[in-house]
């Protein structure tokens, strides 16, 4: 969300799934504060669809919203939403989960949020296998604060803080999730929304730390600075730079440079944090 983003009535987009959002229920219309062409809108819609299709008891799947453009996503999300500070969602969710193990928190992060300021919590949440879902909205930039580089920004990109182009090696969230110990991992992009929905459904039923990255276009901040000013430019840029996981297996690391490997990366079972904690509590009860 940029401050130059158009706001108000022209942004109102009536949609069948929009009626599922809390904002619609309360105000009678759904609206988003996202820029035109931003990928976040379709992600919110996909989440709404999954909530409707799965017929979830909403209060048991609370969203934890971190700080970035997606902070305003609750206007188009279903269910209950707790906003937290920049990067702290997974730590907050750990407390939530330990206080009420019936809940399955869904924490929504940006790339700056999860992979820069909140990386520590990401690593340890995955390591502990907290039974929760982490959704990473990777737009390759700090959208909200005006297009500064993120730890995901592709090398050679221009951003507000890299006028001479970005030269640091970007971080690969999927690899980080893997070595940290997440038990369900997938990466999709805005051109593979149906697969994202399938993954999200799977994560809802998965017991453990699920991590889904979704690479999304940001025409306003990333696009404008990197010759991809229109929504479709960014959309196609990401689409064309994405490689399916089974195809990537046969490609060299040179060929995979700068590519997003999309697909389901991991799906395993391992005791969760609450499994461990409750085991001890049960044992001590008999004492």
């Amino acid at each position, binding site marked *: 969300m940029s401050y130059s983003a158009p706001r108000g009535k022209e942004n109102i987009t009536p949609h069948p799934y929009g009626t599922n959002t*809390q904002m619609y*229920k*309360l105000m009678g219309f759904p609206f988003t504060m996202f820029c035109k062409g931003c990928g976040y809108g379709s992600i919110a819609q996909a989440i709404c669809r999954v909530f409707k299709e799965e017929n979830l008891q909403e*209060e*048991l799947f*609370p969203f934890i919203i971190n*700080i970035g453009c997606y902070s305003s996503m*609750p206007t188009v999300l279903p*269910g*209950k*939403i*707790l*906003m*937290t*500070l920049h990067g*702290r969602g997974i*730590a*907050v*969710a*750990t*407390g*939530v*989960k*330990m*206080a*009420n193990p*019936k*809940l399955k928190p869904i924490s929504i992060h940006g790339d700056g949020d999860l992979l820069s300021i909140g990386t*520590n*919590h990401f*690593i*340890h949440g995955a390591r502990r296998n907290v039974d929760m879902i982490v959704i990473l909205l990777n737009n390759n930039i700090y959208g909200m604060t005006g297009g500064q580089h993120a730890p995901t920004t592709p090398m050679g990109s221009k951003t507000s803080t890299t006028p001479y182009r970005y030269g640091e090696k970007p971080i690969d969230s999927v690899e980080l999730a893997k070595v940290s110990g997440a038990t369900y991992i997938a990466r999709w992009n805005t051109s593979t929304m149906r697969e994202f929905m399938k993954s999200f459904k799977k994560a809802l039923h998965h017991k453990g730390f699920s991590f889904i990255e979704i690479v999304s276009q940001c025409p306003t901040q990333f696009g404008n600075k990197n010759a991809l000013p229109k929504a479709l430019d960014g959309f196609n840029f990401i689409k064309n730079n994405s490689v399916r996981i089974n195809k990537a297996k046969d490609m060299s690391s040179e060929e995979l440079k700068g590519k997003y490997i999309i697909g389901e990366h991991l799906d395993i079972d391992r005791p969760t944090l609450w499994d461990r*904690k409750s085991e*001890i*509590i049960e044992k*001590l*009860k008999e*004492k």
Partner: protein
Amino acid sequence: MNEDEILKRSVLTGTHLLEGNVAMAEGCIAAGCRFFAGYPITPQSEVPEHMAKRLPEVGGVFMQMEDEIASISAVVGATITGKKAMSSTSGPGFALMQETLSWANLIEMPIVVANVQRVGPGSGVVSLPTHGDVTQIKRGGNGEYEVIAIAPNSCQELFDLSIEAFNLAEKWRVPTFILSDAWLGHMREKVVIPEPEEIKKRIVPRPEYIPKENETEGRPQIYTIANKDFTEFNIPAFPPLGSKNFPYWWITLTHSQISGMITETPSVADNTNMTINYKISKNEAKISIVKRYELDDAEIAIITYGTPSRSALEAMKACRKEGIKVGILRLVTVWPIAETAIREVAEKVKQIVVPEMNLGQIAEQIERFAFHTDGQRIPVHRVSHTAILHTPKEIIDKIREIIQ
């Protein structure tokens, strides 16, 4: 386990020899704390160690987090989900918590944090006591807010006042702090813990949220509403995360106290800040706990808190023996500053002495109220140092010096 059994397990009835940090942990468990998240730091590490052993016994959860930021975030998460929760730390860790503490204040979360203070700045001296963080407790985070801080001076009080800290947090819906120090935390003393039934009578439970008759789902009244001149405050219970009544969007931004929603209207933001601040500062007389010793005929008042109050008591006795009329006002709660009690004392005495394990952080506050009714300022003498315990002698010496 039913509730009675849990209560019984949570209260270690009997007479014990306990270390300060352990007495505090036991007090918190007795108060109903069922979630602890922390990170090791001297001189408070005995708190998490004890919690790790004891909390699962009462069906609670202990978490050693990746850092203090995570710890305090998890405490907010557990509290908003309906549990009584706490963290404990020392200076450097406390500094890391500030952003989240500021958030917890904005959203009126009844969390409890113990700061077993060690000498600073920087990494300081890990084993030496101080009250160097007294100002940081309410001025460390961004924005402006008022907190409650309670300063025990013995192991027995570390137990008793920890229960009080949880009670105050619930009653006023505000982050509440237990101010301990390296010396107090590591000292061992006799602690008498009463029967569970006795403790139960002392505990203020988390108030249950009862939705209003025609309330829209997802739109509960979650924040304190003040009247126009901020003299009356309606502090509501809040629905826990996971319940149907939880607001559809609980934000971290400055909100309207009425709707709970985002605001950019200056007057609404101003009202929110006034409400969360005045809720505590204007109710100072109701919140403050003070102890008075021999103040009736006192000409010199020692105003003190925490560990130095023990030395002050000895100093007072010695002075009285010499015929010097000394009394003590002990601030059991340090924040909000006990304005009413301090003014009352200041009106009657000729001079004030403030022994403090810092360079006068509370003395500065006391100076604001040190006047006689006719407006005459009365002197406030500091007995200040940062890493050294006060001996009764230096307080006596100061008193002898000022009556010359």
